[in-house]
Structures are given as structure tokens and as C-alpha cells.
């Protein structure tokens, strides 16, 4: 069934199709529609599980951690300040290996206050151990939520599905809503690792090795900490494979899929643009345009950010001359976060490619990443020598002492 719905509604519908037992979310702009829709569904009896109104994001994550520990399927959604308020719970869930699915609607953190799109809220949670997906369209949001449960529950890791605030959360697109039976076929009920009443009796299915300590919340010994992190790292390194598998299965059932990274017109490209989120759609348009003009350019959509799909990226960028990264975020004092990761992935191996990477920062706090800006970034990368600066500002920036300058970069 095809419906015209917003990204928020797509997230709520995706969650609903997965039959969560406990849903718990605290409203925050631009995510509010998600708890509203789910609460509505609960009232209509469409949501069989329990919808719980809590008093803060800290409690939203706390409540679903509790429920996930009890062995049921859980869902929550938040954004920006809310995600930061959940921070200690995020570490807790990953260390406890709880398969929680969280939808984050990307919005930057204050100050200055901003209610629109920016990836810095979820990217600054990159070290918590959560799997992170970024979505390009409303359809992808819905489908990724379903895939997220598949991945999270098969390797017992929490998973964050990110969609751009405003650009996706409030924008209506036509979305193909899958049949419940098909989703049920794809996603059977959660199998639990927890058997009451004592942890020794737990099913070993979800551990890496039979003898592994469970690494769950009731472990107290400090000596277990390194073991826990060792296992976390080990399972994260398997995660890309799991995502590819889950996506393959999804593709055969539903006829569409989203690999961890997607290469678009990269075959003979000299310059490859990498970015994630809703601006990928605009970038496809720009790439087509530039191709028509005869430029050898391509696009890599980075859907999965954690665990970082480094091997896939290295393979995709093999033999390319230059790489441009557009970050919708910045780590102040360093540079764009995705840029850091790409640069690391390309330069920490014995073999080439040592590709020069250009780090653009654009679209912060809801500033538009327009086709014009993307075009400018790609052409700059194509024509200019790698700049000294780690950050190339793309878009409206008012530098200290400068006049308002609409173009921070100039193309010769």
C-alpha cells in the first residue's frame, strides 16, 4: 500500500510493523509526531504492546532498558537535546548488549538554539557502541527501522536510525508500506537471552563463544570490563556483514534495499563525493548533471556510520583520484566528523589508495545544502589542489571581522 507520509510517520509506522512490546518516548521537536502516532495507534489497539508516557528522555531510555532486560522488543525515539540527555543510558545499553531500536531525528544541540537539521547530535554519540544508520528518504526510514530490529536482535546490539530533522521528519513523500505478514516473516518475535530468574541460566545463543561472560548489567566485577569491551569490539567488527545479510534478505522479500554504503555512478569516476542523510538525494541530481557535462564524478552514500564500513569504503574508493566529503556536522577544534573517519579509513592501511580527501562543512543548523553548493564542492575538489585547511566552509558563514560572505570558497 502506497501512502503519502512524513518521515516521522514513516518511523512510527516502521516501528508499529515490528510489533514492539514496550514503546516509550518523550516528545521533542522535530520528533514529536513519532510518539503521537504511536500513542494514537496504541489507543486504536493497533499497537499491541504498551505505550508508556515518561517524564524525560533519561527515563525513556531507562524504561526501555528495563523492558529490554526483561527480554521484550522495545522502541524509543528522540532528537538532539533528548539524545544527549540519554547519553549515559546509551553507553549502558551497548555495554549491556541490549537490542534496542532508537529513532533519532537529527537536530543540533544548543547553544545557539536551533530546531532544524544537523547530524552533530547523533555523531557525537559515536563512541557509545550503538549501530548508526542515516536515511535518505521517508521510505528508507520505514525500511531501516525494520532492518534495524533484524540487525540489533541478531547480534544483540542497540541500533540508532537517524533521519534529518525537518528535511525528512516534516516532509511528506510517497512511501510503500509493507504488509504486516511479510514483516512478520522477515522479523520473528525477539528471542531472549534472559531467562528468569538467574543469569547463569541464560541462553547462550547470542554470545560469541559459549564461555563468554554475559557482559550484561548485572555483572559487577571490574575485571569483566575489558572482556566486555573486547567482545563489543569483536561483535561490532562482524556487524557490517550482518547488515549486508539483513539487507539481502530484505531485498528478496520487499524488492528494495539499502547497503551500508551505496556507490552511485562511481565506475570510472575521478572524484567521489561522500555524504549521508537527505542531501544524498540532491547530490544524485548534481552528479547526473555533472556527468551530462562530461565530468567524471560519482557519489558514495554513507548509510552506516557505526560500525564504520571501512573495508567497503576502501574498496569503493580504490583508484579514485580525489574524495570530497560534505559533513553536516563539525567537531569544533578538529574538523567534520565523517571527514575524519574517511581520512582515517583511507590512510591507515599498508596499501594505497592514499587519496587526497577534501573536507567540506555545510548545512549546519538547518542551512540548505543546495545543488549549487554541492556542485561547487565537487568542482573545487576536481580543480583545486588539496587545501591546507581541514575545514572548507560551504555555505553562508559569517567569520569574525568579515562581512557576510555567502561563499566561503572561491573557485578559480
Amino acid at each position, binding site marked *: 500500500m502506497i501512502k503519502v507520509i512524513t518521515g516521522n510517520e514513516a518511523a512510527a509506522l516502521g516501528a508499529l510493523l515490528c510489533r514492539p512490546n514496550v514503546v516509550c518516548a518523550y516528545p521533542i521537536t522535530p520528533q514529536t509526531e513519532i510518539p503521537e502516532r504511536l500513542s494514537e495507534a496504541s489507543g486504536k489497539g493497533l499497537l499491541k504492546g504498551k505505550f508508556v508516557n515518561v517524564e524525560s528522555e533519561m*527515563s525513556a531510555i531507562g524504561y526501555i532498558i528495563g523492558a529490554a532486560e526483561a527480554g521484550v522488543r522495545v522502541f524509543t525515539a528522540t532528537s538532539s537535546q533528548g539524545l544527549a540527555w540519554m547519553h549515559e543510558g546509551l553507553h549502558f545499553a551497548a555495554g549491556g548488549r541490549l537490542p534496542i531500536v532508537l529513532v533519532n531525528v537529527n537536530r543540533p544541540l544548543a547553544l545557539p538554539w536551533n530546531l532544524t537539521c544537523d547530524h552533530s547530535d547523533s555523531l557525537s554519540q559515536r563512541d557509545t557502541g550503538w549501530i548508526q544508520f542515516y536515511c535518505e528518504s521517508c521510505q528508507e526510514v520505514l525500511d531501516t527501522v525494520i532492518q534495524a530490529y533484524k540487525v540489533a536482535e541478531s547480534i544483540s546490539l542497540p541500533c540508532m536510525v537517524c533521519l534529518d530533522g525537518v528535511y525528512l521528519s516534516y516532509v511528506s513523500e510517497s512511501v510503500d508500506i509493507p504488509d504486516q505478514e511479510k514483516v512478520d516473516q522477515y522479523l520473528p518475535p525477539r528471542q531472549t537471552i534472559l531467562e528468569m530468574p538467574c543469569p547463569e541460566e541464560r541462553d547462550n545463543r547470542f554470545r560469541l563463544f559459549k564461555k563468554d561472560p554475559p557482559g550484561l548489567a548485572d555483572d559487577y566485577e571490574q575485571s569483566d570490563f575489558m572482556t566486555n569491551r573486547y567482545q563489543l569490539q569483536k561483535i561490532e567488527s562482524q556487524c557490517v556483514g550482518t547488515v549486508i545479510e539483513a539487507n539481502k534478505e530484505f531485498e528478496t522479500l520487499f524488492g528494495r534495499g539499502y547497503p551500508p554504503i551505496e556507490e552511485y555512478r562511481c565506475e570510472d569516476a575521478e572524484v567521489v563525493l561522500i555524504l549521508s542523510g537527505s542531501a544524498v538525494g540532491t547530490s544524485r541530481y548534481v552528479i547526473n548533471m555533472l556527468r551530462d557535462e562530461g565530468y567524471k564524478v560519482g557519489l558514495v552514500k554513507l548509510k552506516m556510520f557505526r560500525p564504520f564500513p571501512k573495508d567497503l569504503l576502501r574498496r569503493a574508493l580504490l583508484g579514485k583520484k580525489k574524495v570530497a566529503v560534505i559533513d553536516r556536522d563539525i567537531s569544533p577544534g578538529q574538523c567534520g566528523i565523517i571527514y575524519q573517519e574517511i581520512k582515517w579509513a583511507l590512510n591507515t592501511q599498508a596499501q594505497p589508495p592514499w587519496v587526497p580527501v577534501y573536507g567540506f562543512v555545510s548545512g549546519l543548523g538547518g542551512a540548505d545544502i543546495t545543488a549549487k553548493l554541492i556542485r561547487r564542492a565537487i568542482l573545487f575538489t576536481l580543480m583545486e589542489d588539496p587545501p591546507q585547511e581541514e575545514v572548507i566552509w560551504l555555505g553562508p558563514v559569517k567569520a569574525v571581522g568579515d562581512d557576510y560572505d555567502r561563499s566561503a570558497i572561491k573557485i578559480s
Partner: protein
Amino acid sequence: MIEVRSKYPRTEYMEAPRSACSGCALPLAFRYFLKVMGEKVVFILPPGCSPVIVNVPRRILRHEGQLIRILLALFGSAATFAGGFKTGLIERGDTETEVVAWAGDGATLDIGLGPVSAAAERNEDIIFVCCDNEAYMNTGNQRSSATPLWATTTTNPPPIPKGQWKKDIMAIMAGHGIPYAATLTVAYPEDFMKKVETAKNMRGFRFLYILTPCPTGWRFHSEETVKVSRLSVETNVFPLFEVMNGIHFVINKEPVGTPLERYTAIQGRYAHLTSQQIGEIQEKVEQRWKWLKWLANYKK
């Protein structure tokens, strides 16, 4: 020899604790609580003294060789974790297991007050136990909002003791209109266990507020824990009472007129007290006792 008759089971669910300070009231509280509660229970423990006592060097809560399940929670989130865990259990078809959030005064009155209040407002079907040792004892006796007037802690060292009255968590909880709230001390085990039983037989958010004197932090001799507990009740510093639905107050122990000095004199944290300060505490204690009496006289 006198035969002690008690309707409460002789079963022990606890091995001797190895990491509690000598004279700690918490193991006693655990022991009495579990005797009534039985083994169909899950403890949600936020950071504090309790998780250290029951987990280190190894788990000591067990029944017939089986461990009683403990879940460690985030500091401010014991009530939320417990609510979520209970909902999860119900979703799985287990309606019997009692979920108990077992927190200290810090995790209840301070960092966790919002979530405790919210869980009470949602009337989550859990038992919330607050073991009040009147300071952050796990980190070595720092001031909390439960630290009483003119007591010293490491963050309120002499000559500047805490100058504020202790937060009245019972009034706060009663204000939520929860089905059951009660104060307990380890000096009155029968009363203690009766209240745990009352809580066990009810549904909804039940709040048990246990005063757990701390020889290390309060600086009294470790054999005097029960004595200090009893004096806290006899001097009306910590009256024993129950609140049903937030409005029906029942006082369980009437005062015997013990002067306050007997309670304060044996505690090092009050060593600096002047007679004026004692008078000030005494006056407040009397006021609050009168107020409690007035509440208890309310009839439908």
C-alpha cells in the same frame, strides 16, 4: 530459654555480607525484607552502598543455591528501570515476580527524585525501597538532601554543619497519592516485616522508607545500630507510620518521651552541637510530630 515465635519464615536468603561496614543496617534490612518477600523478586539497584554489599566480592542473595536476580541501574533511574522491567515481565506473561527498586537516599531524594516522582505518578506496579543513611555513604559520607539539620559530613565539615532541614520524602510521596508508603527501621523487625507484607499484598507504586543508621558516617559504635534506630523512633526524629492513598496516615509507634540528646549524643556527626542547636532541632521535631498527629487524626 525463651522460644521466639514469629509468623515470618526462618528461611535466610542472604549469606553473611563481606563488604558491608561492621554495624551496617543495610544487611539487616535486606534480610528482613527478603524473609517476607520470598525468592520471586528482582532487585533493581542503582549505585550506592547496597550493590556493593550484595555483589562484592560475590553475589550473596540466593535461595537454595539459586541467585536472586539483581539488575544494576543508572544512578538516577532505579524507578524507571524497575517500571520498564515490570512492564517487560508482564508483556512476557509473568505477572507474579515482584520488581523492587532498592535505592539509597541519593538515588531517591536527590538525583533520582524526578524519575521516582514520575514512576509514582504513573503508579508503576513496583516496590520502591529507599534506604536512608542520611548522606552519600558509598562515596564516603558527603552531604545529601537527606542529611539532617546540624549534622556534619565530609562536605559539611565542622565548624559548618548542614544548616538546612532534611527533605521530607514521605510528604512528597504521600503527595502523589500512591497506594502505600511507610517508614521502617531495623529496630522493630516485626513492624518492619508487617509493612513489607502489607506492601507485598498490594498493587501499584509502594514506597518503603527505611532509616539505615551508618556507624561509619554517623560515627557511633558499630554495636549500637539497633539502639540508634530505636532512639530515632523514640525521640520522634524518625516516626514510624504508614500512609494509604496519600491521605490516610496511621502512626505505628507512639512517643515515649525520650529526650533528643540521647539520640544525638552517641553520634560523632553531632559532636559539635550547642544546646541552642539541639533546642532548634527539638522544636522542629515537635512541630513535625504535631503535624503528623494532625494528619493521622483525619477521618473520612
